[in-house]
């Protein structure tokens, strides 16, 4: 039984259809990548799975329950979480307060913050600083740490490397690998950074013009030139 199973999903912003046909499945503990150009529907897919975008047809099953009509907070309480494109940290809250909101969302223990600070020691000296005063990379780490404070079992990561310096990209990559191994997390990663996605994902889907139904074979994923040619952009 797949942890997440999406069949023939359609979504729209108002009357403008964005997602036409999404078919994908994600098993427990998998790290799945989604590749696609700008404007092909990657972010809309993430937001539709999380419940922010109006879906107009199809099914989303999570833990074998139909969740397409559930509000976002109910999906979050089932273990789903999103690290959105642009981070969307709370800019006027301190780093510690951002992490605390992550814990309080599901009434968890504040000890979880200390656990996350061990994974992301870069945040420890910044706890009293406002989220809006952090660099892009620090904000990205904070967004991931805040999401993990929420104790999710399934994480949607939307372009976490966008606008982030290479050293932090490596740090994020290492922590995600470690967390997935230790906590059996299931992660769906949307990216344009092929190296990043190749270093983490065990399977990769491609999305084009709101249609996602193609999985790139693993051996082809290793050949970044082939993937780049397939998608029409270079690494």
């Amino acid at each position, binding site marked *: 039984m797949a942890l997440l199973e999406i069949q023939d999903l359609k979504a729209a912003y108002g009357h403008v259809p964005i997602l036409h046909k999404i078919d994908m499945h994600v098993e427990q503990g998998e790290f799945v990548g989604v590749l696609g150009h700008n404007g092909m529907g990657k972010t809309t897919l993430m937001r539709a799975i999380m419940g922010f975008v109006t879906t107009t047809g199809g099914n989303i099953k999570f833990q074998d329950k139909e969740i397409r009509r559930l509000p976002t907070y109910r999906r979050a309480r089932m273990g789903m979480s999103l690290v959105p494109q642009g981070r969307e940290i709370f800019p006027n809250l301190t780093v510690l307060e951002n992490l605390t909101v992550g814990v309080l969302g*599901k009434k968890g223990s504040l000890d979880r913050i200390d656990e996350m600070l061990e994974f992301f020691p870069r945040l420890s000296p910044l706890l009293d600083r406002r989220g809006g005063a952090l660099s892009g990379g620090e904000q990205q780490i904070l967004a991931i740490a805040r999401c993990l404070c929420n104790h999710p079992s399934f994480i949607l990561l939307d372009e976490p490397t966008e606008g982030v310096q290479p050293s932090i990209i490596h740090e994020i990559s290492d922590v995600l690998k470690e967390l997935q191994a230790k906590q059996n997390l299931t992660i769906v990663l949307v990216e344009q950074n092929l190296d990043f996605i190749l270093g983490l994902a065990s399977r990769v889907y491609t999305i084009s013009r709101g249609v996602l139904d193609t999985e790139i074979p693993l051996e082809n994923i290793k050949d970044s030139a082939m993937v780049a040619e397939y998608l029409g952009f270079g690494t």
Partner: protein
Amino acid sequence: MDFSLVVAIELLREVAGLILIATGLAVIFGMMRVINIAHGEFMMLGGYTVVLTTKLGVNIWVAILILAPLAVGLFGIIVERLIIRHLYGRIIDSLLATWGLSLFLIGFVTVVFGNTVEGVSTPFSGLAIGQYTVAIYTLFLIFAAMAFIASVYLTLRYTKAGLIARATMQNPDMVECLGVNSKIVYMATFGIGAAFAGLAGGLLAPISGVVPGMGALLIGKAFITVVTGGAAVVAGTLSAAGILGTISQAVTFASGPVFGDATLLFVALILLRLLPQGITGRIFTRSV
């Protein structure tokens, strides 16, 4: 010396009055971006709650401090669920809807109670300061306003609920993404803002009397205080009430209440010309 003390108390009374009438509106506007034009009528309902319950024999302090905020807070929750919830993000629509609600409430209360001033006796006598006398209730109002704004600050700054409320104010989608039902947060926020209005109406009832149209007299000053203060609920209300209240009351002493009110508007105009985002849009930007 005695005169100076009396003047200082009167200045503080005006500041306290602005804090009391503006805080509920500031909570609702600052946290939900809803301009509740019916805020003045919520205060009026708080006043009538005190009038009715004291006539029924309820202790005046129970009526002012418990029943008025409770009744109006519950009414606010009903209004949020029936009207406001459907208008989030539509600032003009919510403004028009609450304006309609205010007209309905004025009409309804006028039909039920008549357009006459209802009074409640002031719970305290006077305090002699030299040759002058100051109502002890005035001192109580000043204390109540300070306690009122301090409780809002402490709640927002140091409690889990306050942290969730501040996070929801900044990014409701992300809060939902972390498992919080933002609709419940908004409903509670509106209810608390309404309860503050009820408490303010109850506190003011013994000195101003209660009449169906009293909200219209209060909403203008409350609205100006909130807009001049800017987005931060506590720092904005405190700073705007401090500046506007002190200056308008000082002019009232010198030239009478009409000039005092005109000066309040004039100072607000100047402040908003210099600080279009309000005082806390430029100063105290990190404040709650």
